[in-house]
C-alpha cells in the first residue's frame, strides 16, 4: 500500500511537471508575445518592450520557465497586472467561495444520488423503479444554467415564488457572516448537486443492478437477509470502490461545472476570476491559475485512487496468505 502511494505521488509530481511545460508553452506560442498580447493591440513598441522587461519576458524561455518554477515552489504565484495584488492572495480569497460550493454540491449529489440509486436497485419491479429511472434521466439532462434559473424562479429572494434563499452574490465579508455566506451557496449548490446527483443515482443503480442477482447477494441472503437488505449491505459494499471513482470524477467535473453557476449567481469565485483574467489578458496570472487548477485536478485523482485502493482489498498489494491448511 505504501509502495502504491509513493509510486502514485511520484506520478503526481511528474504529471504536474509535464503540465507546467504545456501551460508555459501554450502561453508562449500565442501570436506575438505575452507582453504584446497583454499590452493590447494599440500599444506602442516601447510600451511592449517596457512591459517585457518588467515581467522578465525578455529573457530566454528556459530562464523564464526556471524563474516561474522557482517562484511557484516558494508559493509566489506572481502579481496581477491589473490589480497589482498577489495572485496567491486573490486565488485564496476566491477559493473560499468556490471550494465550499463544490464540496457542498458534491455532498448534495451524494445525499440525493446514492440513496435513490439504492431504492431504484432494490425495488426491481413495479412503478417506482421506472419512475426513478426517468427522473434520473430527466434531471441529468437538464443544463446547469437552466436548472439554476428554475431554482432562482422558485426559491430566489425577491424573484421566486417562495423566495427563501438569496439568489445573487456573496456577503462582502465572506465567511465573516457564516449564516449569510452559507445561505447564499444553497441555491448554487443545489443547481450543481441535483444534476450531479442524478448522474450519481444512475451510476449507483446500474452498478447495484449488476450485483443484485449475483452469487454474493444470494450468499448474503442465505445468511439471513432479504434481497433488498442484501443489496443495501453486501451489494453497496461491493460497488463502493466503483462509486468512489465516480465521485472523484464528479468532483473534477464540478470544478469546471461551477463556472456557469458562479456567473449565474454572481458569486465571486475562482471560475469567474479565471474567465475575467483571460478576458483582461492578465496572462501571467492566468498561467499560474491554470497551473493551480491542473494541480487540483491531479490531487483529486490522487486521493480518489488511494481511496479506491483502500476500499478494494483485491487491489491492495498485501502479504499473501498462501500455504494455509488445505
Amino acid at each position: 500500500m505504501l509502495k502504491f502511494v509513493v509510486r502514485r505521488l511520484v506520478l503526481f509530481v511528474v504529471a504536474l511537471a509535464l503540465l507546467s511545460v504545456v501551460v508555459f508553452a501554450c502561453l508562449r506560442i500565442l501570436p506575438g508575445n505575452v507582453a504584446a498580447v497583454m499590452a493590447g493591440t494599440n500599444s506602442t513598441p516601447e510600451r511592449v518592450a517596457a512591459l517585457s522587461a518588467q515581467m522578465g519576458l525578455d529573457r530566454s524561455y528556459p530562464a523564464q520557465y526556471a524563474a516561474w518554477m522557482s517562484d511557484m515552489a516558494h508559493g509566489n504565484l506572481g502579481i496581477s497586472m491589473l490589480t497589482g495584488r498577489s495572485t496567491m492572495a486573490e486565488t485564496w480569497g476566491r477559493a473560499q467561495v468556490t471550494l465550499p460550493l463544490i464540496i457542498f454540491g458534491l455532498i448534495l449529489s451524494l445525499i440525493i444520488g446514492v440513496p435513490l440509486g439504492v431504492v431504484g436497485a432494490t425495488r426491481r419491479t413495479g412503478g417506482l423503479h421506472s419512475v426513478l429511472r426517468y427522473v434520473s434521466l430527466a434531471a441529468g439532462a437538464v443544463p446547469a444554467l437552466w436548472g439554476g434559473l428554475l431554482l432562482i424562479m422558485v426559491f430566489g429572494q425577491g424573484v421566486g415564488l417562495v423566495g427563501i434563499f438569496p439568489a445573487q452574490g456573496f456577503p462582502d465579508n465572506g465567511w465573516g457572516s457564516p449564516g449569510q455566506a452559507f445561505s447564499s451557496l444553497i441555491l448554487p449548490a443545489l443547481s450543481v448537486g441535483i444534476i450531479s446527483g442524478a448522474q450519481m443515482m444512475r451510476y449507483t443503480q446500474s452498478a447495484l443492478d449488476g450485483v443484485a442477482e449475483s452469487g454474493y447477494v444470494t450468499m448474503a441472503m442465505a445468511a439471513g437477509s432479504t434481497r433488498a437488505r442484501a443489496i443495501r449491505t453486501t451489494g453497496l459494499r461491493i460497488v463502493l470502490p466503483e462509486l468512489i471513482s465516480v465521485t472523484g470524477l464528479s468532483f473534477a467535473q464540478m470544478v469546471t461545472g461551477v463556472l456557469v453557476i458562479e456567473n449565474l449567481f454572481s458569486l465571486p469565485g475562482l471560475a469567474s476570476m479565471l474567465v475575467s483574467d483571460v478576458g483582461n489578458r492578465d496572462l501571467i496570472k492566468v498561467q499560474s491559475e491554470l497551473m493551480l487548477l491542473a494541480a487540483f485536478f491531479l490531487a483529486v485523482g490522487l486521493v480518489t485512487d488511494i481511496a479506491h485502493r483502500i476500499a478494494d482489498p483485491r487491489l491492495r498489494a498485501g502479504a499473501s496468505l498462501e500455504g494455509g491448511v488445505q
Partner: protein
Amino acid sequence: MSLEISNVSVAASGAPILTSVSLTVGDHERVGLIGASGSGKSMLATSVMGLMPSNVTVRGSALLDGQELVGLSPHQFADIRGRSVGFVFQDPLASLNPVVPVGTQIAAPLKRHYSLGSAERRSRVEAMLEKVGLEPRLATAYPHELSGGQAQRAAIACALITSPRLIIADEPTTALDAMTQVQITHLLSSLVDDAGASLLFITHDFSVLARVAQRCYVLGAAPESARAGSSTAGSSNVGSSNVGSSNVGSSIVESGETHELLAHPRSAAGARLVEAARRLSFSAQNADQMPVPPRSHEGGQL
C-alpha cells in the same frame, strides 16, 4: 429437521422449469438430488427457500418441520435462512463477498440471528474455522487470498456457524479439483452428522453423490403422465404440446437407495448419469494404460 417437498412446480416468466416435484429429507438424513445440467435442480432448492429471482413463481407445498415455506414473505424467509437452514453454493469465490474478510462473513449469520458479544462471536468463528480445517488466523483473510478448497471450507463454515438443522449444498464440489472434491464431501458429511443435521446434496455427479447420500432422487424430463396432469391443471403450460419435454419442465423420474440406483438405474436420465460416472471412473483407473494421443503439430506451430 425434515423437509417435505410435495408437488412443487416452478416457472420462470411463465415458462415451466420444474413440474410437480416431490421429495423428502428426513431427520438426520443425507439425501441427494441429482440431475443433468439445466435440469432445474438448483432452482428447486433456491425457490423453496425464497432465494429465487423475482420473475420466478412457485406453487405446491414445502414443509420445513411442518412449517409451510411456499408463500412466505421475504422477511419470514430471511428469518429461516442462516438460522434453521444453511447453504453451501457451487463456487465459493463467486459467492463469498470479495471485499470483506472471511471471518466477518462467517460471523454474519450469527450477527443476524443471535445477539452475542463481539468477543463471543469471534471465538465461535475461530472454533468453526478449526472445525472446517482452516487456521483461525485466516479469519482476517480475504476470499481472493484463499485457494478454491480453502474458500469452500470457509463457505461451509458460513453455512454451519449457527448449527442449522438442515444444510442445502448446491453442487458444492463442482468448482473444485478431484482431490479437493473428496475432502470437501467428506468434511461436509462428517460435520452434518456431528451436528445431527439433515443434508440435501445437489449434484450432477453420481461419483460424488455415492460418497454423501444414503438416498437420492433423480431429476429429469417429466414423464407423459406429469405432462398431461400439468397441462390440464396449469395456465403456465400454454403451447407446450408441440415442443416436448423442455417446455414442461423437469420432474423426479426415479428415487431410491443410492447404491441400488447406481447398480440398476430404471429411468433413462438415471442411466445416463450413472453411465457418465462409470466412464469417468473407468478412464481414471485406466489412465496409465491408455495411449497418449499424438500431438498433431510438432514443433510448436500453434
